């Protein structure tokens, strides 16, 4: 499968509407299908030294063949645990202590190790979460795919169709008298050149009037579609027939050249299907030579290698950039659709879930709190937790804002958006507090001659009392800019001005003064606080470094700061390891606020947090800005968040500034294709919420 199917969601909608008219399908749908997976009253417990912990209780959900079902919840909600118990891969001491799991009617709740081996891979596949740790670093990619093929006894010669696809094909009436198994033979790479020649001749003969360019165009289509180890004889015959070749001739060509693939062809075919370019060459490489997105494609290929009826996709793209995420999910969607594979999609993003799945299961504290058809749940959330999630989801929030704006309903916009965007005149008046001019940063790569330009001629301003967001994907240079603004990195050329003064010219004393005014909040809530320091010492550290106040006044200040970030004063005596990610991030904000700065640089400060916690921290930042007149330089990869917080947006790609405008302008009228791609990739962005 290559990218011939459009990834435009709009197309998918059309397809959906078309389906109503297809008689055969309607006929097949009359009787109620058998559920593929039925989980009832599931209870999962872990044994720890402190006793038994119930991770999942009384949870039920059902998946039907060919369906996408999403489980949504924050970290620790039990969503992954529920999914893993289905294939018997619970970590550590976890075990199913109640309820039942039925796969195609068969009870597999307490399946033996042998039974589970039979189920895994060929009946239930898994696409795990972290592409970095889920491939064995010492085996070639191809070898790891091969293991998946061999473990499930998959034939490399012919395709295995799911019962669903076979059923539909049968209902449509497959050509009688043909041996269907032979139609599923794969094309081998050895025969492929000869097939292409024969196909060209046949198409030429069938279309005597066509120009050479037309034929070339058709052949280019074949070239892209006909991947060895992936395309089947039946498909080749159909493709030829579609371009005018007589059925008998097409069949003769198919019978002659499509004879089944070899193991290497099949490996390459599977990888190609998952969207990996140059699969045959790539299969000989090792995981460390792959980017995260490519590794995720390999994991998808492996998960689908056994042609399972159900694929568990455990946050398959959460570690990836949004545009890559979208491409991979689109691909996975097309792939599972064509194979008739059902998908149990685990995600923390409600918008993403609703966009991809027909049915949503919301989990909270180990329990299913709400489930139902995606749009219904999204539009009419009933459980208080779901309501809270819907209200906080940044992707949905930004959409709400857009629709409110398009109606000219400012009141609605204000209600749903926490951030009070300054109107244009106000913005224009605001003095710049940080000015970045033609900033360039080059790094020397190890054992390379040429320099790597991480930041290439970037200029923008942060106006006093406003928020400027830098948006970009990994490798865009946005964090490098932040570090230069913070004077943690020396720019190669260009200047950073703070209140009109070049910060690179600061002497030691001026620099210390500058540090009082410009403070950072970093990304990793687990790394930005010293685990050896109590919260009191962490917040007090800047006061101590700058010799501000005595013991007593510092204590008072720390208490005041904790109040400011809405944490109880008793938090003071605690240590970072006792706090959650969001709490640590609030401590980091308190520490940044200790010196009464003018500017706070937030480097992906909310990216690692759960939606609700993220929402809470964003609100806190907004409140602080309103009260104290702070200016923020907000670095993020998530455009949806930008909508909630920023006045101005700088879009960066490969170290270059792509677009710099006000938030409204960037969202309403994006100037460049890259910005549009980023906007498109916001999960749930295209959902029909019924808001307008």
């Amino acid at each position, binding site marked *: 499968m290559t990218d011939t199917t459009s990834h435009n969601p709009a197309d998918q909608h059309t397809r959906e509407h078309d389906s109503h008219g297809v008689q055969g399908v309607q006929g097949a749908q009359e009787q109620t299908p058998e559920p593929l997976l039925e989980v009832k009253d599931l209870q999962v417990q872990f044994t720890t030294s402190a006793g038994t912990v119930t991770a999942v209780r009384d949870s*039920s959900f059902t998946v039907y063949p060919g369906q996408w079902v999403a489980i949504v919840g924050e970290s620790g909600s039990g969503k992954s645990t529920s999914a893993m118990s289905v294939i018997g891969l619970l970590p550590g001491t976890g075990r199913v202590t109640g309820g039942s799991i039925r796969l195609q009617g068969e009870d597999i709740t307490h399946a033996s190790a042998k039974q589970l081996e039979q189920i895994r891979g060929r009946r239930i596949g898994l696409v795990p979460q972290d592409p970095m740790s889920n491939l064995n670093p010492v085996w070639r990619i191809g070898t790891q795919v091969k293991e998946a093929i061999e473990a499930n006894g998959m034939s490399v010669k012919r395709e295995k169709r799911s019962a669903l696809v076979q059923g539909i094909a049968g209902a449509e009436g497959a050509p009688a008298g043909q041996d269907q198994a032979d139609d599923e033979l794969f094309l081998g790479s050895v025969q492929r050149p000869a097939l292409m020649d024969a196909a060209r001749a046949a198409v030429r003969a069938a279309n005597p009037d066509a120009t050479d360019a037309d034929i070339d165009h058709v052949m280019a289509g074949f070239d892209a579609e006909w991947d060895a180890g992936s395309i089947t004889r039946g498909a080749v015959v159909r493709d030829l027939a579609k371009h005018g070749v007589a059925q008998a001739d097409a069949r003769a060509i198919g019978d002659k050249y499509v004879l089944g693939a070899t193991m290497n062809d099949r490996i390459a075919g599977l990888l190609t299907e998952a969207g990996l370019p140059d699969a045959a060459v790539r299969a000989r490489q090792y995981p460390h030579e792959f980017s995260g997105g490519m590794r995720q494609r390999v994991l998808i290929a492996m998960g689908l290698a056994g042609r399972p009826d159900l694929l568990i996709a455990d946050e398959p793209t959460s570690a990836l950039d949004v545009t890559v995420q979208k491409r991979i999910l689109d691909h996975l969607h097309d792939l599972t659709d064509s194979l008739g594979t059902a998908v149990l999609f685990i995600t923390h993003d409600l918008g993403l879930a609703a966009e991809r799945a027909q049915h949503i299961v919301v989990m909270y504290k180990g329990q299913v709190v709400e489930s139902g058809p995606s749009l*219904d749940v999204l539009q009419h959330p009933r459980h208080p937790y779901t309501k809270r999630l819907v209200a906080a989801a940044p992707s949905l929030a930004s959409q709400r804002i857009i629709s409110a704006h398009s109606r000219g309903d400012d009141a609605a916009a204000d209600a749903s958006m926490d951030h009070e965007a300054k109107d244009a005149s106000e913005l224009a008046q605001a003095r710049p507090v940080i000015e970045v001019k033609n900033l360039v940063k080059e790094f020397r790569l190890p054992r390379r001659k040429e320099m790597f330009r991480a930041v290439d001629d970037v200029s923008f301003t942060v106006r006093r009392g406003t928020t400027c967001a830098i948006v970009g994907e990994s490798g865009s240079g946005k964090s490098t800019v932040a570090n230069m603004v913070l004077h943690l990195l020396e720019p190669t050329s260009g200047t950073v001005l703070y209140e009109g003064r070049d910060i690179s010219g600061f002497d030691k004393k001026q620099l210390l003064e500058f540090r009082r005014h410009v403070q950072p909040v970093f990304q990793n809530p687990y790394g930005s606080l010293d685990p050896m320091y109590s919260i009191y010492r962490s917040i007090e550290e800047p006061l101590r470094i700058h010799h501000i106040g005595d013991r007593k006044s510092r204590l008072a200040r720390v208490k005041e700061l904790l109040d400011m970030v809405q944490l109880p004063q008793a938090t003071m005596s605690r240590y970072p390891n006792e706090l959650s990610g969001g709490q640590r991030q609030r401590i980091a904000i308190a520490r940044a606020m200790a010196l009464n700065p003018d500017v706070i640089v937030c480097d992906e400060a909310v990216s690692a947090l759960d939606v609700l916690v993220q929402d809470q921290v964003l609100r806190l930042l907004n409140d602080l800005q309103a009260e104290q007149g702070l200016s923020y330089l907000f670095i993020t990869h998530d455009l949806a968040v930008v909508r909630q917080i920023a006045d101005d947006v700088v879009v960066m790609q490969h170290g270059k500034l792509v677009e710099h405008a006000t938030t409204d302008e960037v969202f309403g009228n994006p100037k460049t294709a890259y910005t549009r791609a980023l906007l498109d990739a916001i999960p749930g962005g295209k959902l029909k919420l019924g808001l307008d």
Partner: protein
Amino acid sequence: MTDTTSSQSASQSAKAQALRTLPGQERYVAPADETPLQAVDSIDESAPATSMWAEAWRTLRRNPLFIIAAVLILLVLLVALFPTLFTKGDPTYCDLEHSLDPSGPGHPFGYDLQGCDVYTRTVYGTRASLSVGVLTTLLVVVAGGLIGALAGYFGGWVDALLSRITDIFYAIPLLLGAIVVLQMFRTSESIWKVVLVLALFGWVSVARITRSSVMEAKNLEFNTASRALGASRVRNLFRHVIPNSLAPVIVVATTSLGTYIVSEATLSFLGIGLPSTVVSWGGDISAAQNLLRVDPAVLFWPSLALAITVLSFIMMGDAVRDALDPKSRTL
């Protein structure tokens, strides 16, 4: 795959299904009171505050390995510091009359070839072995730790230089290096020669561990945060980086203390370790080696004392590692 017609059909069928509600997929809402909604990200104020060290201490206290090791180490320390509490005898008082006499009242381990009391000598041997172990470890941790920390923290040419020196010392096995040097100082009467030589060839392992530990600690975000707060590099090194890279060094130091004691005994066994005037386990074992067939007890008791001491330090090292780094738990 790539079977376009069936592909569309499958997707269509799935979507068609979505239009109807199938059994088991009806709209479900859990009763709100069943999972009461909690405040977002609230802090449990009832739990006691625990620092990383307090946490480690709590884990340690519950580890039987630690309890056994700690009791043994305390006992060994006590014997080394106050041998007179355990014996009234004089380890250097020997009477050939008693040569190889079996154990008797007041002399539980019997006598050796020279007619010295084995029990008394074993008790007094503790001090020499333990001193070598402790002093070597101290030297090694200070020297190796400093070199490793500098190399790791400053990187660049400092690291390159120090790492090459480390490589050179690493290429000489501890025992071989010690033999080369000690064979020239056989006449020296001090235990310091053994300590210095073991430290000279032993600092490398600590330096390597410290270097990688410091490199890891210095790349943590709180250092960047601290620098952005205005802290100087040196302040950062001492206030953040070193405290955060101590854990593996402590583990290695504890375990190596045991191995230095073994090395000292081995050197004494070869006759180039502690001078014969110092009462030591290694020396006594060496002296007793020819009595193996005649009277194994003379060999047995100092060996047992040595083994228990070393074992307790190695167990302590394991226990501390388990407490500080739960990932590499041994038991």
